[in-house]
């Protein structure tokens, strides 16, 4: 009798890799909370947390333990199922997007070639967009289930903000698609390895994508969904303990994944140096893959720093200014970018 002819080695390898990526995402999100406080402090002429552990490195552990031991409050007038579903959805969509990012080149272990990308679907970037669109559900459900006017206001603002800026993001990606000809992220990185990094070919597109990434992650200057001064907590004011932890973590993981996607799409992904052919160095494939992954990580860290840097520089947008910028500012700009790219491609083909 033939059992399912499943390649068990592949399943095992993918499972281990998924577990590894999830762990890395969570640890990076954990230390991003610490990094945020440190970066905020250094920009504000003070020293961040430096008491828990050497240089305060165990501070996220202390924060996690504190959050874990707080009392779980579920308001009695809230919708219990939706109340618990909200943060779970937020975390789910945050994690799902990490499946298509190419974390590195191929690695050869135990006689098998393992590619450091969980799923190299040929609609890579479209999948990311689909999941990001689902992310707004997490916020809306949380806002509605809290049975609280202010949470609802915060959730409405967040939802409208996210869907407005998704459009401009998609439009800037169309211009990129015209150049690369493929939606698959692995394919895009390979093209950037051989040619130019996409940021040089599409600087305006990158800028639009960056601004939209800020809006998608609910980061200042677009953070009126959780404007602490105005709405107390916005959509997460009724949450406590681990559910709140999930919301905050989901935001940081979103930041991490957005940085990874920006690095992959525009800055060459795991390509180490821009105009150079790295295989000329002659290292083995494993070492090259590791170096590539390290380079990608470094780019992600730079982007995360930029996220935090902008947060502590710019004041928040008002809601109508934000809508104006999204619909009347960025969408025309993205369309113009698309037309310009098309014109240049036609001109160069002649």
């Amino acid at each position, binding site marked *: 009798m033939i059992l399912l002819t499943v390649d068990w080695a592949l399943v095992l390898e993918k499972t281990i890799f998924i577990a590894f990526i999830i762990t890395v995402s969570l640890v990076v999100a954990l230390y991003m909370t610490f990094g945020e406080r440190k970066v905020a402090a*250094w*920009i*504000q*002429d*003070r*020293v961040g947390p430096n008491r828990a552990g050497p240089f305060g490195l165990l501070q996220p552990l202390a924060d996690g333990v504190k959050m874990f031991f707080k009392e779980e409050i579920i308001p009695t007038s809230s919708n219990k199922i939706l109340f618990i579903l909200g943060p779970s959805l937020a975390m789910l969509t945050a994690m799902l997007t990490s499946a298509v990012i190419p974390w590195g080149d191929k690695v050869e272990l135990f006689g098998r070639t393992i590619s450091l990308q969980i799923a190299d679907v040929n609609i890579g970037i479209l999948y990311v967009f689909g999941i990001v669109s689902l992310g707004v559900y997490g916020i809306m459900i949380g806002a509605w289930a809290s049975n609280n006017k202010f949470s609802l206001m915060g959730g409405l603002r967040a939802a409208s903000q996210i869907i407005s800026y998704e459009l401009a993001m998609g439009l800037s990606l169309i211009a990129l698609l015209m150049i690369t000809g493929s939606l698959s992220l692995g394919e895009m990185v390979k093209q950037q390895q051989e040619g130019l990094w996409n940021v040089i070919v599409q600087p305006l597109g990158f800028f639009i994508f960056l601004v939209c990434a800020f809006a998608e992650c609910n980061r200042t200057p677009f953070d009126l969904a959780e404007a602490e001064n105005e709405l107390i907590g916005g959509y997460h004011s009724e949450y406590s303990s681990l559910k709140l932890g999930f919301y905050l973590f989901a935001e940081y993981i979103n930041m991490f994944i957005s940085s990874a996607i920006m690095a992959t799409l525009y800055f060459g992904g795991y390509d180490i140096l821009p105009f150079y052919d790295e295989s000329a160095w002659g290292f083995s494939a494993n070492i090259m893959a590791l170096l590539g992954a390290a380079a990608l990580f470094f780019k992600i860290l730079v982007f995360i720093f930029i996220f935090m840097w902008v947060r502590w*520089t*710019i004041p928040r947008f008002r809601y109508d200014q934000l809508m104006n910028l999204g619909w009347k500012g960025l969408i025309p700009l993205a369309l113009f970018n698309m037309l310009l790219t098309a014109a240049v491609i036609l001109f160069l083909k002649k």
Partner: protein
Amino acid sequence: MQLTNRAKQVDRKPLTIAEKIYLPAVLKGMGITFSHIFKKKVTIQYPEQTRPFSPVFRGLHILNRDEEGRENCTACGLCAVACPAEAITMDAAERLPGEEHLYREEKYAAKYEINMLRCIFCGLCEEACPKDAIYLTETFAPANYSRKSFVYGKDNLVIPHPKENPEAFAKAKGLIDERKAKANQQTA
């Protein structure tokens, strides 16, 4: 009608293109914040470093002795009357013939207690005392777990003897660190 001659004309011109896209201003702001990363930090690492207090700071109380080591306090009760929070209580006693080196005058305070939880550190007792006996130093009341340990008795309040304990006396005349250690010992 002009009310002052220092009026400044507000610039109400519409925004230029460069100002409308906010981008040059944002980049300039980001440059400023980035430069602040490399500036000197203003944080003081307490408790390794502390900020100095001024000499008139009203902190913990102390009962003074004179240069020969005799207690100044005569239990006249003016500080207890002056205290707005009614934190001071005392019992007077008469000086016996063999105790002239301990107390200055015939009346002294056998029991002198200040409830630190009631005290508001206003310094009125220091102003009211005719014998320069009570004085407010430049240190905080250390934290504690029980209310009873905040009622400081004479052993906690009287300054160390200048002849028998000169270094402790000298230390107590300045910033009193050993009072913290003593109070901690009391409760440990």
